[in-house]
């Protein structure tokens, strides 16, 4: 229909839900590292008070431009805020944006993709057309324009915009995967048994696509994290909120790099990057789980394979 295609060959169906996944995560070093980073950020987001004694990170209450010390681990900003405290309190919003926007975008992807593939015919044509249009339209300029007109962007506006622009990639993948499943025997037999359509989709088809859905979620969360940080960085977020993107906005507008306060820029960016890396690592491990060919090769195997080839 669209000519836009997605490589779904790599994402084979996992046979058993749950047990297979946890076992595979235990085997994959990449997934473990990703999960640990994510877990640390989750704890910081839930109880920021444990990690700093500062209670109002945005208040201008310290001597400005201090270097790192025992008192202020990462120094203070040129406005007189503790950088470490801002970092700790900023975790929550950045994480919430990534997870919530990622979650809703995934739900939308699954709904659109599965519906299109399962119904086929005209609904499929219409839905895939909409999907491809959303895939192609450059979303960031659109978001910028949207955010400008919406005025000072509250969290809700940012979330809505991210979901609306972030679902199409996953929908395309879901559709392709569902199309390849549609005529499999286990779905055929469910149909012959006379099961309801919703039952077939939700109880029979979707569970076999868990790994793909998780991958779509991780992709959408990464997209939301980076896009939100970018938006806040150029000043289209709420400048009074606590988030890593907002920190980067203030450090840039106060020329932190040029005036000898590089930590103010390095730290929040590093956190965005670390969270992004944790999503990417977990995602990559999922690729390896569903496609064993991608797993790292052990030396022994390499040697044997080489011997066979020559």
């Amino acid at each position, binding site marked *: 229909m669209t000519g836009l295609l*997605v490589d779904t060959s790599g994402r084979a169906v996992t046979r058993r839900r749950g047990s297979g996944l946890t076992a595979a995560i235990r085997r994959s070093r990449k997934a473990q590292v990703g999960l640990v980073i994510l877990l640390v950020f989750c704890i910081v987001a839930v109880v920021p008070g444990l990690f700093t004694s500062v209670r109002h990170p945005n208040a201008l209450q310290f001597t400005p431009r201090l270097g790192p010390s025992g008192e202020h681990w990462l120094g203070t900003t040129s406005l007189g805020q503790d950088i470490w405290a801002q970092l700790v309190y900023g975790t929550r919003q950045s994480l919430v944006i990534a997870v919530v926007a990622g979650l809703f975008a995934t739900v939308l992807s699954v709904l659109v993709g599965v519906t299109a593939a399962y119904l086929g015919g005209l609904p499929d044509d219409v839905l895939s057309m909409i999907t491809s249009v959303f895939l192609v339209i450059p979303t*960031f300029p659109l978001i910028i324009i949207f955010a400008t007109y919406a005025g000072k962007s509250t969290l809700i506006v940012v979330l809505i915009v991210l979901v609306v622009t972030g679902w199409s990639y996953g929908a395309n993948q879901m559709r392709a995967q569902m199309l390849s499943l549609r005529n499999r025997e286990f779905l055929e037999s469910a149909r012959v048994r006379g099961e309801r359509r919703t039952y077939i989709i939700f109880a029979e088809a979707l569970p076999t696509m868990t790994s793909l859905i998780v991958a779509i979620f991780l992709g959408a969360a990464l997209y939301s994290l980076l896009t939100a940080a970018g938006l806040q960085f150029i000043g289209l977020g709420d400048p009074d909120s606590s988030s890593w993107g907002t920190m980067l906005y203030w450090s840039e507008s106060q020329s932190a790099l040029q005036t000898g306060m*590089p930590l103010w820029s390095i730290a929040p*960016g590093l956190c965005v990057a670390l969270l*992004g890396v944790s999503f990417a690592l977990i995602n990559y491990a999922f690729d390896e789980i569903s496609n064993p060919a991608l797993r790292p090769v052990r030396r022994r195997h390499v040697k044997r394979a080489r011997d066979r080839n020559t």
Partner: protein
Amino acid sequence: MRYVVRRLGFFALTLWVALTLNFFIPRFMPGNPLDALRARTHDRLSPAALEQMLTSYGFKPHQNIFVQYLEYLRNMFTGHWGISIGATLGEPVSTIVWQALPWTLGLVGVTTVLAFLLGSLIGVVAAWRRGGRLDSVLPPVFVVTSALPYFWVGLMLILVFSVWTHGWLPSDFNYDPDLLPEFSLGFIENVLKHAVLPAATILIASIGAWILTMRNNMITTLAEDYVRMGRAKGLSNSRIMTDYAARNAMLPNLSGFAMSLGFVITGSILVEYVFNYPGLGYQLYNAVQNTDYPLMQALFMLFTVAVLVALLVCDFAIAWLDPRVRATGSR
């Protein structure tokens, strides 16, 4: 032939949707340009003069919205993009756009294509030497770089190569402001010097994705029977690698490239902003800062057209590489 018609139809449809969104978003959002403009000019202009300015870019609140819409579409296609009402008050939008376009094409366009080609090449080699030293180091490294925010990579490069080295490489603008644009060696050198850091930023932040997907496609392709068949026939390794495996592994990567162009544009807008590089993305940022609606509209249309053109090029590249597409007209 049917394939071409179909793709062009999709092209037209997407462009139309983008233009329509572009037209209706401002009109359905709270607040209107008249108020924004009044605030910007600090109430110093008479309402009539303000209204006239708005009319000049096609915002006529008293006219039928459908008539306005048709007129807007016509103006967009004929290049009547109106007059800037931002920092460069009174300058035709088309002038601003034509000044910015070459810089973006030169920086973002060239770097993106370069990153894609280089990334694909590295991916092919990494997959070919499966389990080699390159293959065990690359994937984790590029999983990390592909998750980095573009603008932050830019900031870090500025810190290391410009701030810490006391201006070893310039960190903003497209050339030194005291130079006059001319076709001389010194000027070209200056332009290239200014392009190094932003180009490196785009390259670092985008290459990882191409390497990883290409490597994964290549590994899947190398397990195919026709590759084994090629080996059995005794073909040379380089022939199997390029003609048999890479050619096929390239296909999903090409369409992936087309699909992630939007993401690249996002990154480039931010990169141009970080480096004050006077391309289209930087102009968009300026337009937003100054609520310059005509400029915003024209720029958004151009971004859409850019993605669509790149998409068409990818499509035709795929059709050229893959006879199946040409035969059936779809995949």
